């Protein structure tokens, strides 16, 4: 999101700059995964043009899978980063939020009949109503956190626990199936375009948030509130409103992710849909090198973190890691990545970096 300043710099400074940048962590993680796959099996990166059952051209390959399936997480990472920055905590109800907004969308699309012949309302209406539902959930969480000053994890625990039941209640426990048609494009492909739509939606969200950050002061306000609430207030900010806003923006992200999720199979499974996605979204924020205690943030790094997580998942599938060992592998990788981005380790690395940079300059003097 940040522009790189146009300044002439020596290679050493460039090196220092890259190492010092927050986004270095997810990039390093990504490079590591790429390198591993290159060494073990370069065919991992093959992308092939195929024709799907509907007769449309599609690109397939692991890279496409990553871009496709990482989209929801990337979109959530945007909102989660803002919430983390402003409130200094995380929203653990995003999975439940996806279930609710997805369920609401299906309810609008299908009406009372779980298997209608044709959709009962335009998709945009369904999306907007679903969006409203997700924003309401965000507003509920936001009010608890910003106004009542409840720890974000605790506040969002309420919807985390109750959300999926609410989602099921919206459709009276039935599983609506949207009739075939353009609704499936959002989680699949648009005929004639060989790249999965979720990727475009994610790109759209990224552009949108980049524009918002450029043309509003959201970034400065969020960080300021996250770092020093009292000081922000004395500078004319309204910390309550800003935290609240962050949760509502996350609500929008949840709705977009929900749209993709329910579109993928044109239906919903209340207990399974977007299960544990909150943990991955938080992990994406952490992988992006953002402090989970709030303050300064880098959304680009979080988004990259999201794709790193999907890259890891796809790599594990690709290598047929045994089912019962899968969580263990993932845990090990996560531990390595998180420890690598921990303050202590970063301090140590910074120390190394300084030494690296100091030594040549000493030589120059000598």
């Amino acid at each position, binding site marked *: 999101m940040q522009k790189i300043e146009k300044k002439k710099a020596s290679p050493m400074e460039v090196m220092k700059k890259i190492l010092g940048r927050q986004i270095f962590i997810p990039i390093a993680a990504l490079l590591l995964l790429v390198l591993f796959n290159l060494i073990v099996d370069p*065919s991992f990166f*093959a992308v092939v043009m*195929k*024709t*799907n*059952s*509907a007769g449309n051209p*599609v690109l*397939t*390959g*692991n890279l496409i*899978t990553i871009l496709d*399936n990482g989209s929801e997480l990337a979109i959530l990472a945007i909102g989660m980063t803002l919430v983390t920055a402003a409130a200094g905590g995380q929203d653990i109800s995003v999975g439940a939020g996806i279930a609710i907004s997805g369920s609401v969308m299906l309810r609008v699309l299908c009406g009372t009949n779980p*298997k209608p012949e044709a959709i009962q309302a335009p998709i945009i209406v369904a999306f907007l109503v679903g969006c409203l539902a997700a924003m309401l959930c965000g507003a509920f969480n936001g009010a*608890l956190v910003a*106004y*009542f*000053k*409840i720890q974000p994890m605790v*506040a969002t625990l*309420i919807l985390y*626990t*109750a959300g*999926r*039941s*609410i*989602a*099921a*209640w919206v459709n*009276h*426990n039935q*599983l609506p*199936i949207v009739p075939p048609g353009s609704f499936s494009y959002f989680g*699949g*492909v648009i005929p004639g375009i060989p790249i999965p739509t979720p990727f475009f939606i994610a790109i759209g969200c990224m552009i949108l948030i980049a524009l918002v950050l450029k043309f509003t002061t959201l970034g400065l306000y969020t960080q300021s509130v996250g770092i020093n609430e009292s000081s922000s207030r004395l500078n004319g900010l309204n910390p309550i409103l800003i935290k609240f806003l962050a949760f509502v923006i996350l609500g929008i992200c949840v709705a977009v992710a929900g749209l993709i*999720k329910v579109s*993928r*199979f044109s*239906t919903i*499974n*209340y*207990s*399974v849909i977007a*299960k544990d996605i909150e943990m991955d979204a938080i992990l994406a924020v952490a992988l992006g090198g953002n402090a989970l205690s709030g303050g300064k943030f880098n959304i680009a790094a979080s988004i990259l973190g999201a794709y790193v997580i999907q890259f890891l*998942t*796809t790599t594990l*599938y*690709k290598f*047929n890691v*045994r*089912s*019962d060992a*899968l969580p263990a592998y993932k845990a090990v990788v996560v531990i390595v990545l998180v420890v690598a981005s921990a303050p202590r380790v970063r301090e140590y690395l910074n120390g190394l970096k300084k030494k690296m940079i100091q030594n040549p300059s000493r030589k120059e003097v000598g």
Partner: protein
Amino acid sequence: MKKRVLAVLMAATMLLGLTACGGDGSTPAGGDVQGADGGSSSGTIKVGIINNDPNESGYRTANDKDLQAMFTAENGYDATFAYGKTNDEQINAAQQMIQDGVDYLLLSAADVSGWDTVLQDANNQGIKVILYDRTIDADPSLYVASIVSDMAKEGETAANWLKDQGLSEYNIIHIQGQMGSAAQVGRSGALLDMAAAEGWNVLVSQTADWNAEKAQQIVQSQIDAGKSFNVIYAENDDMAKGAVAALDANGITHGVNGDVIIMGFDTNKWALEELKAGNWNYDGQCNPLQASYLNDVIQKLEKGETITEKTIVMDEKGFDAKTITDDDVNTYGI
């Protein structure tokens, strides 16, 4: 401080509200029966039914509906329903029911262990315990009967069906449910035993945690790796659907007359419709309709008969795309 108290109150109210909503939506019968509680006559049988969260899956929803329909005042029951996602919640509910002095305690436990004490209490009070749907690790003397689906048998039925297809070679993608669950253990075991005995080639056994999307990714990853396969054995319908989505995306045919045989479980109605349309080949039943079995047991006990078989295995079918009828879809689809 004030704010905090207020917030907690608000949260509590919200939760209560939700529970109330849930109650309204899903347990109308429970409410009715509780209303009639005060004037219960000696003719009604008082049962406490402990189940898992009805939103957990379509299977559970069907299961709950079936129970709600059976244990009504018209059928001579005074039923209290309780739902719990965890053992703790369920045990609390059980203790409450024991105090209320129910005649029968019907239990589908969230977790297999930790039930000894509370069941012992029930027995001491002369309450008869009947397990349904899920078994527990406890002394069999603590309950009078256990009505179960035999997941291994479901798996065997499916594996035998697959064997009967007489393919020249078997290259199987095996998509597992949540590791360690009874359904996964039973269904995986049967397939892998058969594969070993028959020399089938299982390309991959991978868990998708009952999740369609993960199943899609697993199959996609096999396609991207250039593996050729002709059978997908998915341990539930959702995952079979995910697998099919991956095949569709890659233009691979499936189902009757297709290149890949699709097998699923749980007989969701939509899954049976896929079967009927020839998109899938096989779907194994996991019968959620246990209420009639429970009723039988209770009626027998009421008449003073003894239950000879402690473990009652329900009839469960396997459906073939070539032979399934509309009638089957409507009868067995959940």
